[in-house]
């Protein structure tokens, strides 16, 4: 299959090591004195958006920055625990830019663009330097130098961390850089705002319409370029480890205006989360993957064995990861471990009150190393577990189950992080770019900051310098049109006055997604999902109940707008999963597995990115293809046996 004429990845010339230098040399520059004449909108203040806003403002552009929360410091990035990768090779254990590049391409199961991944590995080191200069308190050794650890089964120690709060510290770094620019008047900050529409003028992204979440007013903002850094869409499943307001609306509205959506079906399901406790649960909590370094995962051998874990004798336990993957054992990668847990539950061997869980047992580690050593390593995680479940993991095994955690898919972007809409740049988890079909641990923070600090500021300058941009303000009719579309949707939602709450619909959607578009997928299930989602959508628009006043804080209205978009996206995810007739990374098609239940890629037919084009409401979207070439890392089957 060859690349669609609508997709130009703009990969620069030259060997992979020289592409970024070549590109930067060719980029046009904006004269420092002229930068103040340009305005850039940045939606989102997570690592990607926060870093981009601060850096663009430092360069001299006027930045308008938007977020849903009451302060940019609270974006979802704040919740990342484990760490951030970089190819510094401080521990001298064989790491290099090339190795980080290689691991990321392979870990992504050969479904990412080599050129982008190489650049990511290249700038990873600058990120650490920049963050330290900002005062980010990374963990240090006694000699005063930065400490590194190995993460997610990696063979080198390349992960930098700040206790279990790496995302928080990196975000506070970007936030402080932003606040400095707010103080200087270069960033105008708009908090408690939600983007509802993208505005195009003559085919270029020139502004947005947002809802002011405090007084309900719809506001219009114009600019010379628009950046979306609005995060991932894991909450399409209702339950996920994402923050409550994480949503797809900004990206989805851009999709409907012509930005193609790349690989929507690629979802990462993290193996070690605290299981669901009941129907009123609102979100899931991640337990760090590092626990698998010492904990042993098992399920009872017998079906329906309801005895408390400690009463099940050794010979009746199945340490299934150790059994199936003798060489990687409990450290098998995320996608593989998650699927194995699901197999056990499907066999009727799940544990706990709901049966949707497996054990993660520290008994042997405590016996071997002593409670002190385990406490030293994981004390805060054990405490968190006990706080949530009321059980003491020093005495009884933890119960864990996989949960939706990250979305590799997102708006399609070229090498310059520009979408198929001119002037619309997409950064961070919101784009599809660097992780292929599976993301490695500690690489999302790296990508967000790479995009925001070191890549987008160059590519956006190039765009502004090389594009003829006519004067556009919010009086332009395109703004009025976008505003009235938003108003219409609000009026409609408020007028339905049906019998079901927004959350009921969201939970129903999540159920369909988890059942058929979750950890393992098959043709019949995906077809069923598409039908069921379409039906649910119809019911939503006839029967949802959104009470309250649109001119005051109205959280039900906020949620209704988000769920409306999640339903449409959910359908596209199912379509994408249906068309991709292979298994790769987080996408597992039951029809495509090896004899021993491992994922089977089809490089002849599917070594490409699927980029979906919107063609109108209730019309089938068009699937475009960007061929992927592997010139440096050669295609090979992943194996963890």
């Amino acid at each position, binding site marked *: 299959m060859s690349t669609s004429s609508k997709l130009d990845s703009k990969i620069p010339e030259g060997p992979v090591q020289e592409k970024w230098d070549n590109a930067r040399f060719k980029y046009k520059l904006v004269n420092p004195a002229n930068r103040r004449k340009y305005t850039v909108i940045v939606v989102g203040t997570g690592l990607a958006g926060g870093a981009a806003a601060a*850096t663009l403002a430092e360069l001299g552009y006027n930045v308008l920055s938007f977020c849903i*929360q*009451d*302060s*940019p*410091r*609270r974006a*979802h990035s704040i*919740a990342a625990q484990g760490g951030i990768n970089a190819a510094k090779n401080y521990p001298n254990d064989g790491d290099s830019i090339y190795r980080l590049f290689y691991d990321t391409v392979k870990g992504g199961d050969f479904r990412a663009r080599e050129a982008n991944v190489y650049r990511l590995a290249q700038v990873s080191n*600058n990120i*650490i*330097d*920049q963050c*330290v*200069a*900002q*005062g980010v*308190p*990374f963990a*240090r*050794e006694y*000699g*005063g*130098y*930065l400490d590194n650890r190995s993460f997610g089964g990696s063979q080198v120690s390349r992960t930098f961390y*700040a*206790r279990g*709060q790496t*995302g*928080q*510290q990196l975000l506070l770094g970007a*936030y*402080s*850089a932003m*606040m*400095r620019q*707010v*103080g200087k008047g270069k960033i105008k900050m708009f*908090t408690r705002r939600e983007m509802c529409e993208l505005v195009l003028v003559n085919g270029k992204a020139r502004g947005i319409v947002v809802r002011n979440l405090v007084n309900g007013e719809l506001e219009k903002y114009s600019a010379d370029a628009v950046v979306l850094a609005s995060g991932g869409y894991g909450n399409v499943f209702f339950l996920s480890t994402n*923050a*409550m307001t994480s949503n797809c609306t900004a990206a989805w509205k851009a999709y409907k205006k012509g930005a193609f959506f790349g690989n929507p079906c690629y979802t990462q399901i993290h193996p070690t989360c605290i299981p669901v406790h*009941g129907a*009123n649960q*609102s*979100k899931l*909590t991640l337990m760090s993957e590092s626990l698998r370094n010492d904990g042993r995962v098992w399920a009872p051998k017998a079906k329906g064995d309801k005895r408390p874990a400690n009463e099940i004798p050794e010979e009746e336990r199945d340490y299934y990861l150790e059994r199936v993957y003798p060489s990687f054992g409990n450290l098998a990668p995320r996608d593989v471990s998650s699927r194995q847990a699901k197999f056990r539950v499907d066999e009727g061997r799940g544990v706990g*009150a709901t049966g949707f869980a497996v054990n993660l047992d520290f008994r042997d580690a405590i016996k071997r190393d002593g409670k002190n050593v385990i406490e030293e390593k994981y004390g805060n995680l054990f405490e968190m577990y006990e*706080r*949530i*479940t*009321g*059980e003491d993991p020093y005495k009884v095994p933890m119960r864990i189950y996989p949960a939706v955690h990250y979305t590799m898919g997102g708006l399609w972007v070229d090498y310059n992080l520009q979408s198929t809409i001119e002037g619309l740049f997409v950064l961070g988890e919101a784009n599809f770019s660097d992780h292929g079909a599976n993301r490695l641990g500690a690489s999302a923070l790296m990508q967000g900051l790479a995009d925001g600090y070191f890549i987008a500021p160059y590519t956006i300058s190039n765009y502004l310098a090389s594009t003829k941009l006519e004067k556009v303000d919010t009086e332009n009719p395109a703004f009025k049109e976008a505003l009235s579309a938003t108003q219409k949707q609000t009026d409609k939602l408020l007028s339905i006055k049906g019998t079901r*709450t*927004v*959350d009921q619909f969201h939970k129903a959607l999540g159920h369909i997604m988890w059942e058929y578009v979750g950890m393992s997928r098959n043709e019949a299930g995906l077809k069923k999902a598409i039908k069921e989602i379409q039906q649910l959508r119809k019911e939503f628009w006839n029967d949802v*109940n959104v009470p309250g*006043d649109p001119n*005051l*804080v109205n959280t*039900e209205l906020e949620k209704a707008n988000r769920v409306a978009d999640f339903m449409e996206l959910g359908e596209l995810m199912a379509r994408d999963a249906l068309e991709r007739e292979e298994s790769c990374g987080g996408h597992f098609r039951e029809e495509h597995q090896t004899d021993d239940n491992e994922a089977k890629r089809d490089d002849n037919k599917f070594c490409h990115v699927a980029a979906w084009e919107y063609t109108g409401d209730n019309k089938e979207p068009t699937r475009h293809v960007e061929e992927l070439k592997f010139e440096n890392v050669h295609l090979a089957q992943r194996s963890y046996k």
Partner: protein
Amino acid sequence: MNDKLMTLNLKIWRQKSAKHKGRMQDYKLSGVSPDMSFLEMVDLLNEQLVRQGDDPVAFDHDCREGICGMCSMMINGEAHGPSALTTTCQLHMRHFHDGDSIVIEPFRAKAFPVIKDLMVDRSAFDKVIQAGGFVSVNTGNPQDANNIPISKENADLAMDAAACIGCGACVASCPNASAMLFVSAKISQLALLPQGQVEAKARAESMVQKMDEVGFGNCSNHAECEASCPKGIDLSNIARMNREYFKAKFS
């Protein structure tokens, strides 16, 4: 696991907007599982309110993992409720009993006006950070991260201070609505690191001035802030800030 469901008597502050007058309202809520988080308990109430066509209780929340600092409730008169070192979103209903009365109010302070119900405006915190809570370094090509070794002790102390989630519990529980713990945590973090020392004096001076300007009160050593802090930010940060401030004023 305890499956016994509870019935609770809730008294909740309802206020339509900053312009409206607020009042306490009673709700009886049954079906509360001890495994629920406090916010899931409020979700349950809201689900019922919405079904009746009533306006749900507005409250701030996002991560529900105790890290974003968005949740902010006074529960029976205590910021984030009865459990030490715990945010509202991480408080679980197993700490309450069937038949309990629970009073839920917003964080109150002059600098934190109510937006709706339990939601308050904490943008005053951002303004204080804008006054100097940063290192003035542009994105670019700073020196290698390992060029300046920092003693583990100082790095750890800086991390202790940097753990602040900016929730405002310290302000809400202080009789003077002082923001000293919040401000001192940021000043300490940066003062403890060589990167922050260049601007230490100017930073302390302008952040303290801004803190007064936006309406936070004075510190008179009640230490309620430390007791209510879900992240265990230590009072010693205030002493360190005072040192930095006097250095700035008298040198």
